């Protein structure tokens, strides 16, 4: 059973540019839609809050794992931790890795998120029920919003 997410994206920008967008906390915040309190430091907790319209109450917390310049940026976090009443910190986090490779036209970005096998199934079910299937619509709203404001 597949318990990881993998994405490959071709970016028409040099590796150095992508690295900055990933690891400069202000730049990261712009495309990730999160306001971070300070710079990323390996081994340290990064805090902030989501800036999505409607999700501003959601805290952003991740522990930076690796920062290998222009190659690998990784952090652990609790995906989908949107319910302020739940303490997610006791759960095993998932690992998010951004790997960069230079290509002829720019940069290949490989994203993986792994460790979903450790997430309690009741949390997965809850995450799903809480949205009652409406997440797709919510994402569409966000997409429209982004399209209008960018």
């Amino acid at each position, binding site marked *: 059973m597949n318990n990881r997410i993998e994405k490959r994206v071709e*970016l028409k920008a040099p590796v150095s540019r992508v690295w900055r967008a990933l690891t400069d906390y202000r*730049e990261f915040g712009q495309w990730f839609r999160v306001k971070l309190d300070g710079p990323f430091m390996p081994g340290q907790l990064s805090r902030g809050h989501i800036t999505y319209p409607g999700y501003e109450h959601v805290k952003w917390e991740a522990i930076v794992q690796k920062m290998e310049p222009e190659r690998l940026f990784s952090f652990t976090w609790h995906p989908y931790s949107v319910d302020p009443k739940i303490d997610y910190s006791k759960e095993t986090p998932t690992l998010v890795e951004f790997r960069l490779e230079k290509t002829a036209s720019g940069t290949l970005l490989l994203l993986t998120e792994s460790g979903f096998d*450790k997430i309690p*199934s009741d949390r*997965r079910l809850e995450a799903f029920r809480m949205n009652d299937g409406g997440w797709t619509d919510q994402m569409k709203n966000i997409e429209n919003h982004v399209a209008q404001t960018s």
Partner: protein
Amino acid sequence: MSHKRRSRMAARRQPRAPVFAALGDETRLALVAKLSRGHPYSISQLTVGFRLTRQAITKHLRVLESVGIVRSVRTGRESRFEFDPQPMEEIKKYLDLVSEQWDQVLSRLKSFVED
């Protein structure tokens, strides 16, 4: 009782059931594949095609049962096992949801660095 209600109660009984871990085994995956054809099987029927004893197969079935993927139904003296797709569908939906979020995030990153 509605299907949804029933699954909620099942989730409460098995509050931290590691469905993924239960499926992280080739024999159990093969059993699920066989059971997912849709009708209940006896242990003897399920043991066919495996180089394992009935006891070993039973043990695997109990693991699957403990996470709610498989149900046992008694017919007379015999236990039969059937597939319950709901936990797997829910996992798939959950992963689809997370995956969809990444698509959105990465497309914003793409516009951000390419502009």
